[in-house]
């Protein structure tokens, strides 16, 4: 039996607009840019829905309806669900229908796609619970497996997830950590009793997610027979191939005219046409295979960049000071009991925000490869800090009102 665990991450941040210092104390609209504005969440969401969510969900739903052996796992952030509810509610209906077939699993994570695990454990717990509640409400199921934002993983996180009773946790199958071991097995994290570790096969995942349309790549164009060949070869190293990627790979990162949809459609059919091949959800992978070995990752590993670390989110002085100031306000914000205020604050924990303040690639000439909703990392930081100032102002107003 040879299995592919296809897992797709569905997320949109709630971007803040160009919130000025002169707005502070005057208006607290942080997240609603004009529809034609650069940070208009509505405009961006509808655009991506058109290019990616709708066509790809349609494709996956038809595969599910045509073949009981096709399975897929999603992780869907709370910020994405909120936006879909507002602007594209039928997307949620499609996912609900798919989940109801039993062939789709929804993976747990933080509601706000945050890195709270590394800043504030209580906040992290709260956001995971919020997400669980939202998923239960919408899809009627409680997540049995877990992924952290950006697949940021370490031994401590595994221990936490084990204690919470998750069956599996997802992580990057980074060669530097695995050494000679293959990502195509199920592992057990160090010091854990029950939970299993699923590792992303980053070569085969990135062949689709990053390289598919790259004409400078010597393997371009990637055809289905070629890819199936690679899968067959790689299966010799273990029978479970974990293809983890962003949902937006399909239609947004790789545009429709690259042939990505046709590729996926015929790849799924071709794989299933061989009798010993199947697709599995993350939970099913755990049921099917026993851990081969124990793996320890004391240092945090993510699925980002060549460094596979958190440096894109917390390395420069702006990022560290922004996060420090943000989490430093938590106690007062939660104590206020003001739901709107708490939601406004929590939205700022989304990891996309510190990412937009990253200067790692900013001045090394690769600027055009850099995608951001803001004109520069410095501007993003300015708006973020202005918002924190306004939240502080609101807290003070609440305090004086109570007196």
């Amino acid at each position, binding site marked *: 039996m040879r299995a592919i665990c296809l897992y797709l991450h569905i997320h949109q941040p709630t971007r803040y607009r160009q919130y000025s210092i002169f707005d502070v104390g005057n208006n607290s609209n942080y997240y609603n840019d004009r529809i034609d504005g650069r940070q208009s969440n509505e405009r961006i969401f509808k655009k991506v829905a058109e290019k990616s969510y709708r066509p790809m969900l349609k494709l996956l739903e038809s595969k599910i309806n045509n073949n009981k052996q096709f399975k897929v796992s999603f992780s869907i952030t709370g910020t994405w669900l909120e936006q879909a509810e507002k602007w594209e509610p039928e997307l949620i209906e499609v996912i609900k229908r798919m989940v109801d077939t039993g062939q789709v699993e929804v993976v747990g994570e933080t509601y706000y796609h945050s890195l709270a695990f590394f800043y504030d454990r209580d906040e992290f717990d709260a956001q995971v619970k919020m997400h669980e509640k939202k998923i239960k409400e919408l899809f009627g199921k409680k997540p049995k497996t877990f992924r952290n934002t950006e697949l940021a993983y370490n031994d401590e996180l595994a221990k936490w997830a084990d204690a919470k009773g998750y069956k599996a946790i997802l992580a990057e199958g980074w060669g530097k950590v695995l050494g000679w071991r293959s990502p195509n097995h199920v592992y057990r994290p160090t010091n854990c009793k029950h939970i299993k570790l699923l590792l992303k096969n980053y070569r085969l995942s990135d062949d689709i997610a990053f390289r598919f349309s790259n004409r400078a790549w010597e393997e371009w164009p990637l055809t289905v027979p070629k890819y199936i060949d690679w899968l067959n070869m790689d299966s010799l190293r273990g029978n479970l191939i974990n293809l983890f990627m962003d949902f937006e790979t399909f239609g947004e990162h790789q545009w429709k005219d690259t042939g990505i949809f046709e590729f996926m459609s015929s790849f799924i059919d071709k794989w299933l046409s061989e009798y010993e091949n199947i697709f599995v959800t993350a939970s099913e992978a755990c049921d099917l295979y026993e851990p081969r070995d124990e793996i320890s990752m004391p240092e945090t590993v993510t699925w980002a960049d060549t460094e596979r670390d958190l440096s894109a989110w917390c390395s420069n*002085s702006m990022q560290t000071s922004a996060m420090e100031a943000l989490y430093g306000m938590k106690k007062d914000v939660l104590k206020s009991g003001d739901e709107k205020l708490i939601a406004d604050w929590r939205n700022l924990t989304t990891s996309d925000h510190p990412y937009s303040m990253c*200067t790692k690639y900013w*001045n090394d000439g690769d600027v055009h490869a850099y995608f951001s909703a803001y004109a520069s990392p410095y501007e993003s930081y300015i708006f973020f800090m202005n918002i924190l100032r306004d939240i502080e102002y609101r807290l003070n107003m609440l305090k004086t009102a109570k007196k």
Partner: protein
Amino acid sequence: MLGWELPPYNSGGLGVACLNMAKSLAGCGASIDFVVPYSAKHEDAKFMNILSATKISPFLRYGNGAYVSSEIEKLFIENQDTGDYQSIRDIQKDYCEYVEDYLENHHPDVVHAHDWLTYEAGLIAKQKYHIPFIAHVHATEFDRAGMKEGNKLIHEIEYEGLMNADRIFAVSETTKRIIHEKYHIPLSKIEVVYNSLDSKYEEDGYEFDDSTYKYIESLKHSGWTIISTVSRFTVQKGLTHLMRAAATAISENPKLLFIFAGDGEERNELIQLSAELGITKNVIFTGFIRGKRLRDIYSLSDIFVMSSVSEPFGLTALEAAHHGDCLILTKQSGVSEIIWSALKYDYWDEHKLAEQILAISKRPALKKALQHSIQQEYRQISWDKIAKKCLEIYNDTVKKRKK
């Protein structure tokens, strides 16, 4: 090469740019004869032959007036036919004759002419001797006149030169666009060749002694932020916008000190404006400064603002970067095209400028990030890279000519 000035006989950035470019080209193996319109010794330019077109002193090279277009116009209209070298036109005439004599006996591969002053001589080389002619645009008459009409005769010389040149070098994309839009030159003929900081700028042994400016240092110690700008006080530089932005910023943070270094016809207007806005306490006018004094201003400052409405390049920004300042640049300046670690705004957007000044003054993390990144970045802009690009274009032009 045809130019009008070389250091130490330079009135501004043009001579410095010519010298540095010639030096780097010589370093790449080019042999250069450089024609200047005066007789003088150039100790710094041993790497090329300097030829004097006339016997006049370097101080007379712009005729009897300064390098200001309206005065030049006045000069040659009022002083027509009144003796030798009354106007710059007389000197240009002799300059052309000299170049013509020179070309009778020499056969350079390329003639490279800097700004309108030498385009007529460049034209002779092309039309009479069929030598490829490259026109190098450091500034157009539109730039010098603050995007207004300017001097018609100079426009005509520029137009004639640019139309007939085999290739055009522009110091920035902004200048390239002006050449295209105002002189109707096809874009394919124009190459952007940026400027860079004088290599000697880093090695001349300057050291900042902070005890010289006790007053400003004491302000800094009590939490003041020092913002400076260095420029000619003309409409081209957008200084009234800066002054109004200063007033807005000071209303939020009174601990801001603005240093306006330079002089020009707008001085009185600026002083009056600062009084009207009620911010005279926060504004310092230094008058025209150069050398060590100028470097001291950069060193004292936390922020350097380039507020130009139109700026072909803007070398002062790189000088300020060298002295550790954070940069705020208008998007209309050429230097902002190649500098990423800076805050940018449109010259009319006083609100945004105020916002950016406030953000740096109130956020040490932002200041640190900007300072840190610009230090790495400005060093990557080198004359050597620029010279290599020039040589490629020379060779390409010569090849095309031969066909």
